[in-house]
């Protein structure tokens, strides 16, 4: 679909690049993926079809992204890495992969055949196909990582707007709690929270929110303090608009720019955090594949040169995704400086 309509010329793509179609595309990509990963076990018969709309949406988004970032090869490289994994995530059920949880032939090295099956990336200690595990694993990493960042942003931005716009007591209280949370090293906060709530994807979202929201709140608060003295805010105030309306309609769109760069970086941090926490045994739980889990399992079964592919595959996968986020942030920052 995307390919044929490309011929319609740049004007169509331009139209797509406007905020509304972009949001629709993002929703089309994101909602099916999230539903698939978080509630996949309750979908029954629909599980196989739910991801279908996400595939074209991802491709179109990628093309639009490349077009928008074309000035910076760094950003395009970052975007390509991220979208490579996104595409893997949305197409995983339709790729000709083996069942990621099915033990076939333990400790098969990459590019070799065992029991009449060829393994590109070998198998792990249980004999599960590494290629299929690393691809299926990116679904969970991406969905939980992005969801956690998004929730943290909603919470952080909300408190930041309230604190920056309303000032006074609100600001004092919110800032104090943000300071309390910011005084903890992130890992300490993660360990304490996840240990209390128990390890699971949803609890990671909660923990990331606690750890990231204060910093986001500070950024948004600073921006809000700056912007609230602008004329259009005064105008809205004199019109007698409700503070909530002003915050969301007038302030929020104008703090968007710096936040997007920060969000890209933060997506990287969150991905690191999730992988690390899962490695420590506080994150996602087996048996479904996940990069942190693959590292955790391989770290005790494969600490040997000839099995080191089991450690390297997930390590490289997670590094490439984070590199993608960081390069994207870098390119965006470069571009925003140029404007």
């Amino acid at each position, binding site marked *: 679909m995307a390919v044929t309509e490309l011929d319609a010329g740049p004007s169509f793509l331009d139209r797509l690049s406007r905020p509304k179609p972009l949001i629709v595309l993002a929703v089309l990509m994101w909602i099916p993926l999230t539903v698939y990963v978080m509630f996949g076990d309750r979908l029954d018969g629909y599980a196989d079809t739910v991801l279908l709309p996400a595939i074209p949406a991802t491709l179109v988004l990628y093309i639009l992204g490349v077009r928008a970032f074309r000035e910076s090869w760094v950003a395009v490289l970052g975007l390509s890495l991220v979208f490579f994994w996104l595409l893997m995530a949305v197409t995983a059920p339709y790729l000709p992969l083996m069942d990621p949880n099915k033990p076939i032939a333990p400790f098969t090295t990459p590019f070799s055949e065992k029991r009449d099956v060829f393994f590109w990336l070998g198998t792990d200690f249980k004999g599960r196909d590494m290629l299929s595990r690393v691809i299926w694993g990116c679904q969970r990493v991406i969905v939980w990582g992005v969801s956690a960042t998004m929730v943290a942003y909603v919470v952080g931005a909300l408190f930041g707007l309230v604190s920056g716009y309303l000032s006074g007591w609100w600001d004092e209280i919110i800032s104090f709690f943000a300071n309390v949370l910011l005084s903890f090293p992130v890992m300490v906060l993660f360990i304490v929270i996840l240990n209390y709530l128990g390890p699971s994807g949803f609890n990671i979202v909660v923990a990331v929110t606690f750890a990231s929201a204060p910093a986001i709140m500070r950024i948004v608060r600073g921006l809000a303090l700056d912007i609230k003295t602008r004329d259009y805010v005064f105008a809205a105030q004199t019109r007698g608009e409700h503070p909530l309306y002003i915050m969301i309609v007038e302030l929020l769109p104008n703090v968007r720019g710096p936040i997007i760069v920060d969000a890209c970086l933060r997506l990287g941090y969150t991905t690191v955090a999730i992988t*690390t926490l899962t490695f420590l045994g506080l994150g996602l739980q087996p048996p479904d594949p996940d990069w942190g889990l693959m590292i955790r399992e391989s770290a005790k079964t494969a600490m040997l040169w000839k099995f080191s592919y089991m450690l390297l595959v997930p390590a490289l996968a997670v590094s490439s995704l*984070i590199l993608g986020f960081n390069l994207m942030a870098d390119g965006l920052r470069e571009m925003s400086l140029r404007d």
Partner: protein
Amino acid sequence: MLKLILRRLAQMVLIMAVSSLLLFAIFDTPEFKKRLAVQELGGFAVSALTEDSYQSWLAKRGLDVPFHERYVNWVGNILTGDFGFSFEKNRPVGPLLADRLVNTGILAFFVFALMIPLSLVLGVLAGMKEGSVQDRTISFVSVFTTSIPEIASAILLTVIFALGLGWLPVKSAMIGGFSFRELVLPVLTLVIYDFGYVARMTRASMAEVMTSQYIRTAILKGIPYRRVVMKHALRNALIAPFTLIVLQLNWLLSGVVVVEVFFEYDGFGKLLLEAALFPDVEVVQACTLVAVAVAVVSQIISDIGYTFLNPRIRFA
């Protein structure tokens, strides 16, 4: 200035009080107590305990009183220098934590000793000529290394240097006493992850200084380029990175958890994780206090440093 420091310290004490009270409340749940009992007595034994003997076990551990009472006692003890007792390690928390902090301190010392020169030199080299090939290469490398999470670089280093080449040991448990060879991989892992960030900040700061009015004037006056960089630019460009480096101490306390666990190095991070999972309440408390203190104090030092190093702020 002094007033600001005192205010900060007062805030720190308040934060410590609030967070430790929260932690006491969190670890006071019946589930945590049960988990502690399971750890100490074994799952089979706990389920055979009658309610009475479970209660007397709680009483023996001092867990039968409400948490706020325990909290008050704990605060009282802290003021007399007693940090409590570790259920898991069976020894007072004070010396235990001190041992582990020394180990993490050794690790941190070498990380900084390597990371500071490396990142400053690279940052300055990149920032000297903004936009040059040199700059772009260094910038890309620093983004690249910062993108490899510690767990991944720990794996890469272990696979190459320990499993592949066999030059270095795989684990750093140091059971035969302190060993430099065992320290190399954890230090490198942390340096690789962290130096890129500081280098980038140094680059930004250097680039800013190089475009400033007085440097341009100096160059126009015909002072040799080398001298301009060495004598004038560097001093001003290194203010921001220095304050940043102090703040890395706080980051390091997070970063060491995964590195210490992966390499089995007995430091603060491993202690914290083990204690939280056990759950060894008073160790978690003490670790948290240390972490908060490090965070706040490094913030204060960085602020003071910035004020003293930066004439514009001092005289403004």
